[in-house]
């Protein structure tokens, strides 16, 4: 696309990631360095690292795209993504750190002493991790295609290879530095262009976001038709278009509505309550994002690097602030995208809003191109950091639970460095192969489904495990199988199944509102029915989870 800065910017981000990884490698000498950063990472570093890890392609690209398309109703995505950390802080952060558990399977072992439950948790960690990794790699491929015109496979392979190498060679200490760097890079990459864009919008005399006569093209725009569709023009007339046709719109011409591209019209966009799933969908989304964050494996693994429970709390609070600060910007891009890149509403490729907006607003001069390169670098940082974090946690459970078991060291024993590297290769290869072969999935939707699965499996396990003495291993396993299994089923139907209509569609597309209560109910009911299996040491476990470290028990 003729922007000379984008490729160097992406290469620079990748090299910086590798360089910080190798700098960390020199510091990481022992197995414990590799796995948990020796537990000496300060809250601020750790919080930036968690933020860097958490803000994935779905946050960096997806949120702005959704807002451009659907308007105020999807603001619940960023709010929920941030509020998840509040739920984590209130119910999980300090006790989880005090439990000493490094992964979710570790937590099962510490609290309920059950090998079977440990295996089940491992399976869910790997499933959620891969469900989250595939769209990251696909987003990387699509970004490379959008901004450089390069092949899709190259982007997915590049990010997959860089991340796998970095995780396998540097382990987690390196990853902590890499992630913290990535957070600040991502924030800068959105904030700096946003300032220029807003100033330019002011200079334009603040063109309205929802003009009374409908959206208009800011400049002459050519749209190439790829699929047969029906355009509904502003005066209500319709027009059939054929693939290959080039539509030329002059500046000031109204934007037509394209059949098959689901977007919200003016008032629906501006005002809440016009979601496809209605109130049910909104509340289901709120439940999934608020409660799902605590069940994401790459988030939990970070808590072990806090020195104690109080530090874990403070870290979570800083993360909440950092993540909230970040989410202000995607909203801005989504809103101003309606003024400057309305053609994306015709193509439906709204995930490209953030990437295209700088040039669309500031022109293709040096400034616009430099800012576009900065945004592209930030997007790559998003793919690299989320994938690294996910891969570290998936590799962590594979090395401690699958490989260590196979080599007769028994589950729960810290695997060797070599085990961890082998696990990282395996854990990285599978999603790369999937990303290259599976038909393109919608980034934000799949990430939302991963949240729903986490909210209906690990959230009840953690909350009940930490606060309720009578939880038993059978109860926990039944709750995860029924609630998490129902969510996994809904995911499979959404991704592979036929399109659904009416209430079934709402229940399947946003399953959290029924799968989360189901998981809690089953877990409590089965635990009460198997009361005799309550672990005998639950008292001392509770003491360990909740007593402050200052007592030095």
């Amino acid at each position, binding site marked *: 696309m003729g922007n000379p800065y984008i490729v160097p910017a992406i290469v620079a981000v990748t090299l910086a990631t590798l360089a910080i990884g190798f700098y960390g490698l020199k510091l990481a000498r022992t197995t414990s360095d590799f796995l948990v950063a020796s537990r000496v990472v300060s809250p601020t570093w750790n919080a930036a690292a968690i933020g860097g890890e958490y803000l994935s392609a779905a946050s960096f690209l997806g949120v702005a795209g959704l807002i451009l398309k659907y308007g105020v109703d999807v603001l619940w995505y960023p709010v929920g993504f941030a*509020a998840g950390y509040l739920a984590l802080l209130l119910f999980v952060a300090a006790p989880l750190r005090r439990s000493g558990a490094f992964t979710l399977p570790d937590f099962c072992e510490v609290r309920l002493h059950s090998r079977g439950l440990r295996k089940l948790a491992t399976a869910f960690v790997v499933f959620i991790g891969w469900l989250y990794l595939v769209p990251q790699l696909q987003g990387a491929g699509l970004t490379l295609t959008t901004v450089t015109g390069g092949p899709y496979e190259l982007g997915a392979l590049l990010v997959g290879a860089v991340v796998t190498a970095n995780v396998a060679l540097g382990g987690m200490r390196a990853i902590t530095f890499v992630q913290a760097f990535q957070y600040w890079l991502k924030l800068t990459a959105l904030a700096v262009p946003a300032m220029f864009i807003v100033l330019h919008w002011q200079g334009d005399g603040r063109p309205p976001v929802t003009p009374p006569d409908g959206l208009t093209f800011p400049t002459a725009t050519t749209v190439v038709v790829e699929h047969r569709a029906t355009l509904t023009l502003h005066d209500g007339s319709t027009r059939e278009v054929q693939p290959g046709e080039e539509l030329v719109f002059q500046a000031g011409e109204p934007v037509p509505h394209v059949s098959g591209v689901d977007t919200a019209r003016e008032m629906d966009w*501006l*005002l809440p309550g016009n979601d496809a799933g209605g109130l049910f969908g909104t509340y289901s989304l*709120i439940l999934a994002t608020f409660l799902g964050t605590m069940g994401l494996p790459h988030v939990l693994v970070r808590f072990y690097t806090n020195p104690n429970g109080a530090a874990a709390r403070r870290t979570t609070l800083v993360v909440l602030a950092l993540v909230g600060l970040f989410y202000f910007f995607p909203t801005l891009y989504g809103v101003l995208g309606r003024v400057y890149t309305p053609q994306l509403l015709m193509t439906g490729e709204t995930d490209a809003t953030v990437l295209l907006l700088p040039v669309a607003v500031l022109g293709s001069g040096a400034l616009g191109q430099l800012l576009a390169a900065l945004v592209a670098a930030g997007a790559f940082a998003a793919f690299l950091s989320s994938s690294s974090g996910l891969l570290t946690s998936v590799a962590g459970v594979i090395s401690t639970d699958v490989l260590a078991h196979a080599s007769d060291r028994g589950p729960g024993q810290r695997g060797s460095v070599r085990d961890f590297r082998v696990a990282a290769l395996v854990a990285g290869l599978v999603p790369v192969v999937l990303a290259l072969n599976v038909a393109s999935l919608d980034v934000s939707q799949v990430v939302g489904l991963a949240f729903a699965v986490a909210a209906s499996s690990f959230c009840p396990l953690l909350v009940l495990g930490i606060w309720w003495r009578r939880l038993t291993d059978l109860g926990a396993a039944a709750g995860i199988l029924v609630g998490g299994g129902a969510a996994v089923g809904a995911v499979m139907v959404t991704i592979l199944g036929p399109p659904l209509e009416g209430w079934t569609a709402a229940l399947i597309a946003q399953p959290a509102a029924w799968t989360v209560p189901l998981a809690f109910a089953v877990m409590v009911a089965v635990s009460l029915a198997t009361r005799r299996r309550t672990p005998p040491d639950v008292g001392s476990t509770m003491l360990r989870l909740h007593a402050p470290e200052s007592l030095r028990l």
Partner: protein
Amino acid sequence: MEQPTTGAGAPQRTRIVLADVVRRRDHDRARAELTEQTQVGDALVRGLVRAQLALALRLSVVVAIGLGALPLLFAVAPTISTVKVMGISLPWLLLGVGAFPFLVAVGWAYVYLAERNEQDFTAVVRRPER
């Protein structure tokens, strides 16, 4: 392993000024109460867990009302959505900007109150013998 000191003689008194011996002895007793799951120790831990859970639930209710009621409010009273503050309609302002400082404020309150609960617990455990 730390040995309990007798702490009776005069030379030891000078060390007590440093609050070392007395604290360690009390601390050992408290530690034993807690770790050996005596009735007192168990009640202390249950009290702490209950206090922390009640705090977390109370703040969840604050969020459930502050944020969770918004979709319902917008659905029941659509006129609220059309209110504009500084040229931005209210739902956009509440969700796009206001929600984040609100969440951080609730989180800050939780960290402060949860640490106070823990200090209370520590104070009870370390309380010198009556």
